[in-house]
């Protein structure tokens, strides 16, 4: 099980295990003239939580946003070489419909960003933009998603109130519920707990643990303990390179690379 992709190792060319949902190969990424990612090779496995850790500016968020092409929004950002395949489809192929891709790969952001609509409308938004108007179907999905996000009991009495009235943790879980409503297979989370207090953080972590049974989840986090707690696999990025990738236990208990060792033990940065 020790799949270990080091940037400079030849191992990277080994064929991926059949469980890999996302496959990145020799990925180089740059913002204008400055290169942000160097030669990344990584397999992300199905129905597992993968955590990206590393100091700020190491490229982990950039890499995450490659998976649903959110980087397209930034004019100067582009992939210089390499491929990313999701379910064996190259997502940077010119025949790919970005919108379909984003429905397949949901995303939750660092700052919870509920729309200033009612709680109900926030969840229903994703379905409405797909043209689903059936009230019953909407109601059911909203309920399932809120239950799925462990938020149902807290908000079931005030579905028509503004989502901005929820607490920070509730807002973030609402955003997760909103992402679930589009029925993705992969959920990307970009530092989902960085703006939350410990209790809310714990709740979101519980949720991630619960969602793991159904979804493939990729989490970017600054908080190493969080990565250790929630993830099955951890990737350590440093200066745009993937330094070490492996089962979380190994990264935290017995990392191979001295840089990883230094980082996880807090002697670094």
């Amino acid at each position: 099980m020790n799949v270990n992709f080091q940037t400079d190792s030849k191992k990277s060319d080994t064929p991926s295990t059949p469980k890999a949902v996302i496959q990145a190969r020799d990925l180089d990424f740059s913002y204008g003239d400055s290169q942000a990612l160097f030669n990344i090779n990584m397999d992300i496995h199905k129905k597992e939580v993968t955590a990206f850790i590393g100091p700020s500016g190491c490229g982990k968020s950039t890499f995450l946003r490659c998976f649903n092409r959110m980087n397209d929004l930034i004019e100067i950002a582009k992939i210089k070489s390499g491929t990313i395949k999701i379910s064996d489809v190259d997502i940077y192929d010119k025949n790919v419909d970005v919108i379909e891709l984003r429905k397949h790969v949901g995303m939750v952001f660092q700052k919870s960003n509920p729309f200033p609509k009612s709680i109900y409308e926030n969840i229903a938004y994703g379905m409405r933009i797909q043209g689903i108007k059936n009230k019953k179907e909407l109601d059911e999905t909203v309920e399932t998603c809120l239950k799925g996000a462990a938020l149902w009991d807290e908000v079931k009495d005030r579905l028509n109130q503004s989502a901005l009235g929820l607490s920070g943790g509730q807002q973030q879980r609402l955003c997760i519920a909103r992402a679930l409503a589009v029925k993705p297979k992969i959920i990307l989370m970009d530092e989902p707990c960085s703006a939350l207090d410990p209790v809310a953080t714990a709740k979101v972590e519980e949720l991630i643990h619960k969602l793991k049974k159904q979804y493939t989840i990729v989490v970017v986090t600054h908080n190493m303990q969080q990565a250790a707690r929630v993830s099955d696999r951890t990737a350590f990025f440093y200066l745009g390179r993937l330094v070490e990738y492996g089962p979380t236990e190994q990264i935290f208990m017995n990392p191979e690379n001295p840089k990883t060792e230094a980082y996880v033990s807090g002697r670094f940065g």
Partner: protein
Amino acid sequence: MGRKEIQQNGKLEPFNLMQKNSHKEPTHLFSKRFSKKKVLEESVTYLLRTLTYLVIVLAGYLFLDIAYKGSKAIFKTEAPFINTQFLTEKPQTLHVFEPLEIDKKLSKIRSEVLSLNIKTKSLSSANTEQAKEYSTTIKAHNNEIKRLDILRKKDRLTFSDTEYRALEFTPSLDEFKYNTYAYSGGGIGPAIIGTTLLVFGSILIALTMGVLCAIYLSEYSKPGRSLQAIRLSILNLSGVPSIVFGLFGFGLFVLYLDWGVSLIAGWFTLALMALPVIITASEESMRAIPKGFREGSLALGASKWTCIRTNVLPYALPGILTSSIMGIARVAGETAPIMFTAAYALRDRLPWEGLENTTDFFFQGVMALPYHIYVVSSKIPQNEYTQNMQYGTALVFLLIVGSFALSSIILRAKVRKKYDW
């Protein structure tokens, strides 16, 4: 914060000074004490306050003067209390017949008063008795003038154009002095209609173009030097004098495109004038919407347009509307741009009357309130017969523009409170 705080924060004086004062009343380190500086502060405060209230009083006088004199024209003492005639009728020439006898008397007395005045002035300062005598005579004359004036008002006859033409017997010129005053009879109906048409047409054009342009600039365009240049030039264009827009509209629409003095030329001229304001304001309110709304929507698989439609425009709309109402107030209040692009001094027909083709509707000039005010204040004399028309028009116009501006000010305050994310 006010004077209280100033007193509390009065500068601490050296200790010995404090002790000198201490025999008067028990003082401690922080007790209040008198100083020259405090007086100065008080007086500066009062100076600033006076300046502020001076502005308020001056503007208030303007408002009240127009409101008081104008209300005579647009309100009546009996039900329905509003002079609908004035608000709906077309402007007409006023025909006035004043009783000749009284008029002659009046002019005689007036000339006497005038000569007496001159005499008083030429008197040397020593001659006080003479001066007193003169002044009493003048007073008596003035009273006589007032009396005669009331009589004259009672006996005079005034007719608007249509009434005058319908008269079977015109009053004889032996008994009456006959005068006509242009624009002073009838009402300002066509001007109100014309202004409404001009404002709504132009704001429709400006809003459509402005909002579309703002969407492009804030959502689609790539940041860079060219975008900055465009922003800068739009910003600067909003400061260009309105008469320059009028000049441009006249040159391009009226002469070059040969639309003539017409509604459509006025629309485009006014729209261009409002365009920079609307673009800037719309773009600003769109950029004020947090990035998260867009990212959240896109990450859920919305297309860019869906994202704008559902998650940008609805929240930017209150801001856009507020600013566009401000734009309406600006457009409605302008005279210079329509002076030679759209406005006629006098036009009997209403815009929808006597059209051969529907397109003629766009290619006709209209009356407009601001231009009407310009005409009646500069082209006809001021006297009791013309005052009603002048002040009435000004008040109606002020009310219309003022209500736009007021609603925009109120709306903006509300929107700011509501959408504070």
